[in-house]
């Protein structure tokens, strides 16, 4: 069966787009072929900076003939109906077949779609793929209207089998498909023809092009690590950079160079970032000292002087870059040792968000919140406040202006240089964490306090101005911030009532977004929230003391803050569900626990959920759940029917059956144990206590009819069921558990 080879040869494709584009070419091409009936045995796509290549093996030589049968009108139907049918089916009257059916004789048409040669199909599909290619960004060039990532120069499209190779007849905007391509731009200029994939790949290699990006990456990594090893050094691994560099060259040549001594005292992260971002160099470090001493650059060619000129040029460029970095570092250190005030003052001129004020406004809010959170996480309040005040100072530094990705890290260096306490310096770096789901969570109390305050302020701020994430849009990374809070709380076992902090911080953000609101009034309210713990009471108290605050701004808080706070907590519960689902906890289990009081204490909430999840996996748990549901169903139906709530007054003296008496006793016995376990937040033990009820409940339902004719007995039994509901509902709302 024939093979297909396609190469789309263009000017340099951005490195970051190549892998995806090769996959898109493969998927769209093979999908199109299969849809047209051309199945195949295998396909793989490859790329270099100048070409996308697809090789399809074992493709059908033509698409199979398709037959379709269509039922028409009855024999003897009006001519108009028959003609319409003939037109639709595309057949002649004499081709119709009469067949007996239970409703009498009916016309049938057999439509035959003949197979088509592969070349025709390939040409159509490829043209469609090229014209509709999903580049992240595409362009026009010259006077044409075709779009490609950069100007497309040639198309190679060849179908080959034992008898030879044929060029597919295809022309797009003046580019006619052929059987030839070009080698390396500088080392092997000129076109050559190929006869199939193997020939193509071999000739490319002879023309200094390594077609497979994985092979290029592998060669670069091997050579780089060997050269480093020979000097007793090691290359700092960077998979992203390796993939990018492999996408910048067709013929990789690895060169190792020196970093001038005067730059070796720069922080290693600065060296690494500068070399990577500007020059796409790998860092080479001395494993003994951890210092970065050399660099690896990857050229796209061999030269007569073995790369000496290229390396010298690269070294010179690097020195100029690092001279800049050193200049920034030294200037920054001077500001840092003077106390960083220049930076913190500069942040008042930097807008954080036009409705939420400047960076310094925001920092003041974070510092206030960090102070409030500090005791909860075991941090010193003064240190937490101090850390929050300087944690973002490095945003004004020259180094971070140049390399934004070094924010936080530079903050730590500069705070250390300023002689600030180590806890404070560490918080400068750690307070951004965790950034992603795999990022480490800070554990030092001061860092935890600032990290929580930072994220909670961001969330309450954007909630206050109604800029919440919608669908796939989350421009302010609020989902990430909420997940960060969740992980900070859970992994540090923090016991914190989020609700209160939401209220406090919402009030502070309202000051920023609502110009009419007086800051002193807001701070008064914040103090009341701290005293009362509940917004409503705090608001009443503040209003009473402040008297009639003129304007509606203050009273607008009465409704807005609690509503927004509730909405934000619901968002947290959603994020928590996603987070726990990945850890194997069912969403209904979480719902059952969210329904309990104190659900803004995430650690408590998750404790419940884990205990419930584990309990439901046991046989006792499964059966108890069934018993509970049975009790609850009977009770709910009776309550609906009778229009009353059976909630107290069950008395063992009305028990008729021994199982009934036994259930009374069991409830009595377990009640105490369960209550004290709940008191101690030992939910596993509480559920263990409930498990003891399983046998008596089962036996009771086995032996007794709840809806007895004797109304006294019936009422007593319903009240007994209500006790089961009450006892079993202390860890979670089991009515929300599915199954």
């Amino acid at each position, binding site marked *: 069966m024939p093979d297909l080879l396609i190469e789309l040869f263009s000017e340099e494709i951005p490195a970051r787009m190549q892998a995806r584009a090769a996959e898109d070419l493969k998927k769209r091409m093979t999908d199109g072929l299969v849809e047209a009936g051309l199945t195949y045995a295998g396909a793989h796509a490859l790329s270099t900076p100048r070409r996308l290549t697809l090789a399809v093996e074992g493709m059908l030589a033509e698409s199979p003939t398709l037959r379709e049968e269509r039922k028409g009108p009855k024999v003897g139907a009006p001519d108009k109906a028959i003609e319409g049918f003939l037109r639709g089916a595309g057949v002649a009257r004499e081709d119709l077949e009469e067949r007996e059916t239970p409703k009498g004789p009916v016309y049938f048409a057999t439509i035959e779609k003949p197979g088509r040669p592969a070349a025709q199909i390939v040409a159509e599909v490829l043209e469609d793929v090229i014209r509709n290619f999903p580049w992240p960004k595409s362009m026009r060039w010259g006077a044409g209207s075709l779009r490609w990532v950069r100007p497309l120069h040639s198309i190679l499209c060849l179908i080959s089998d034992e008898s030879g190779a044929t060029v597919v007849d295809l022309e797009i905007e003046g580019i006619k498909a052929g059987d030839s391509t070009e080698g390396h731009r500088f080392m092997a200029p000129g076109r050559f023809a190929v006869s199939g994939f193997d020939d193509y790949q071999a000739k490319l290699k002879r023309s200094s092009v390594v077609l497979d990006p994985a092979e290029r990456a592998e060669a670069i990594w091997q050579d780089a690590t060997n050269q480093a090893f020979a000097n007793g050094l090691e290359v700092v691994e960077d998979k992203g950079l390796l993939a990018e560099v492999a996408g910048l060259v067709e013929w990789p040549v690895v060169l190792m160079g020196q970093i001038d001594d005067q730059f070796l005292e720069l922080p290693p992260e600065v060296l690494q970032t500068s070399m990577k971002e500007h020059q796409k160099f790998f860092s080479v470090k001395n494993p003994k000292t951890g210092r970065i001493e050399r660099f690896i650059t990857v050229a796209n060619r061999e030269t007569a002087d073995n790369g000496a000129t290229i390396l010298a040029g690269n070294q010179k460029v690097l020195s100029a870059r690092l001279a800049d970095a050193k200049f920034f570092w030294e200037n920054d250190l001077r500001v840092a040792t003077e106390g960083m005030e220049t930076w913190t003052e500069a942040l008042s001129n930097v*807008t954080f968000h036009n409705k939420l004020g400047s960076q310094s406004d925001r920092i003041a809010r974070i510092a206030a919140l960090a102070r409030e959170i500090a005791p909860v996480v075991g941090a010193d309040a003064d240190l937490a406040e101090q850390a929050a005040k300087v944690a973002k100072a490095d945003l004004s530094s020259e180094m971070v202006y140049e390399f934004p990705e070094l924010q936080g890290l530079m903050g730590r260096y500069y705070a250390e240089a300023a002689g600030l306490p180590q806890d404070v310096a560490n918080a400068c770096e750690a307070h951004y964490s965790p950034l992603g789901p795999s990022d480490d969570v800070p554990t030092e109390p001061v860092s935890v306090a600032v990290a929580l305050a930072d994220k909670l302020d961001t969330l309450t701020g954007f909630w206050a101005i109604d800029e919440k994430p919608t669908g796939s849009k989350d421009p302010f990374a609020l989902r990430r911030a909420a997940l960060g809070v969740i992980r900070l709380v859970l992994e540090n076992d923090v016991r914190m009532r989020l609700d209160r902090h939401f209220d406090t911080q919402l009030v502070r953000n309202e000051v920023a977004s609502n110009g009419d609101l007086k800051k002193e009034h807001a701070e008064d309210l914040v103090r009341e929230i701290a005293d009362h713990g509940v917004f409503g009471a705090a608001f009443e108290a503040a209003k009473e003391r402040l008297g009639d605050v003129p304007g509606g701004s203050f009273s607008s808080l009465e409704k807005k803050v609690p509503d927004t706070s509730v909405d934000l907590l619901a968002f947290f519960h959603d994020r928590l569900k996603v987070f726990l689902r990945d850890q194997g906890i069912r969403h209904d289990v979480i719902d059952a626990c969210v329904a309990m009081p104190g659900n803004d204490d995430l650690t408590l909430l998750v404790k419940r959920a884990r205990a419930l999840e584990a309990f439901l996996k046991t046989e006792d748990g499964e059966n108890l759940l069934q018993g509970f549901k049975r009790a609850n169903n009977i009770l709910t139906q009776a309550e609906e029917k009778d229009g009353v709530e059976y909630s107290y007054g069950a008395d063992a003296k009305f028990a008729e059956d021994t199982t009934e008496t036994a259930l009374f006793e069991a409830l009595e016995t377990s009640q105490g144990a369960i209550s004290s376990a709940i008191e101690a937040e030992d939910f596993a033990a509480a559920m263990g206590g409930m498990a003891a009820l399983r046998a008596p409940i089962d036996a009771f339902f086995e032996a007794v009819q709840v809806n007895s004719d004797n109304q006294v007995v019936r009422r007593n039994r319903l009240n007994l069921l209500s006790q089961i509901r009450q006892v079993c509902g202390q860890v979670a709302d089991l009515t929300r558990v599915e199954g």
Partner: protein
Amino acid sequence: MTQNSAAPRSFQEIILRLQSYWASKGCAILQPYDMEVGAGTFHPATTLRALGSNAWAAAYVQPSRRPTDGRYGENPNRLQHYYQYQVLIKPSPPDLQDLYLGSLEAIGIDMDLHDIRFVEDDWESPTLGAWGLGWEVWCDGMEVSQFTYFQQVGGHDCKPVSGELTYGLERLAMYVLGIDHVMDMPFNDPQAPIALKYGDVFKQTEEEYARWNFDVANTEVLLRHFEEAEAECAAILAQEHQDPKTGKRIIMAHPAYDQCIKASHIFNLLDARGVISVTERQAYIGRVRTLAKQCADAFVLTEAGGHAA
């Protein structure tokens, strides 16, 4: 290659070689535009001529000013006044990459010894409402040029597309001549009876302008000039297309565009004086972009802009 293949010896020789190279490739060698601009792209020979359907091929040196980059002539490669070499060909020819590489050879870069790379770098000018896709061209890891296929200018789709090449002349020349500090670079032939270095020509002016740009320029006057340029631009474009005196259809796209250039440069000066806050910055850029768009709208109604009479 008919070019002189020996290594160039001075800054001006590199410029002269680029001029003769692009002349030999059929470009009209234009002179710098006689206004203060931030980059060669601002020259109407690029900004306006990239619009409309008429073919175009031009190359020129453009003195460019970036007040915030002033370093009193002390930084080895940062200047508030420097030269760009600019080539614009419309429609972009299919062999533009090869033509470009030929220009590097013409100034003495030996393709067999150096590593030339085309690294993704999309170009966008918020003040001109323009963008394009292309690369920065690296020679041994150093950016020597910007290579762009214009897609939009002044909010108009470029049809056909122009290919634009921009060379930062000082940096490129320092690299070719092996000079570490721009002020040490030979401006004319080092063997000339009166040999001049770049510093002999520009060290003092860098100092003078840095002082003026950063600390002395009268911001009130500049702010007023900005407003005036903006108003004048609008006033010019508001005129009837038909000139009442000659009876001809004369749309004054270029005079209006001069005001746009002026506003843009004044904005750069205000920025260097540090009187523009982050939020205001966006607003000013938006105002200049509005002018650029209006000028582009006007230009495409002119004959040079492809308007059929």
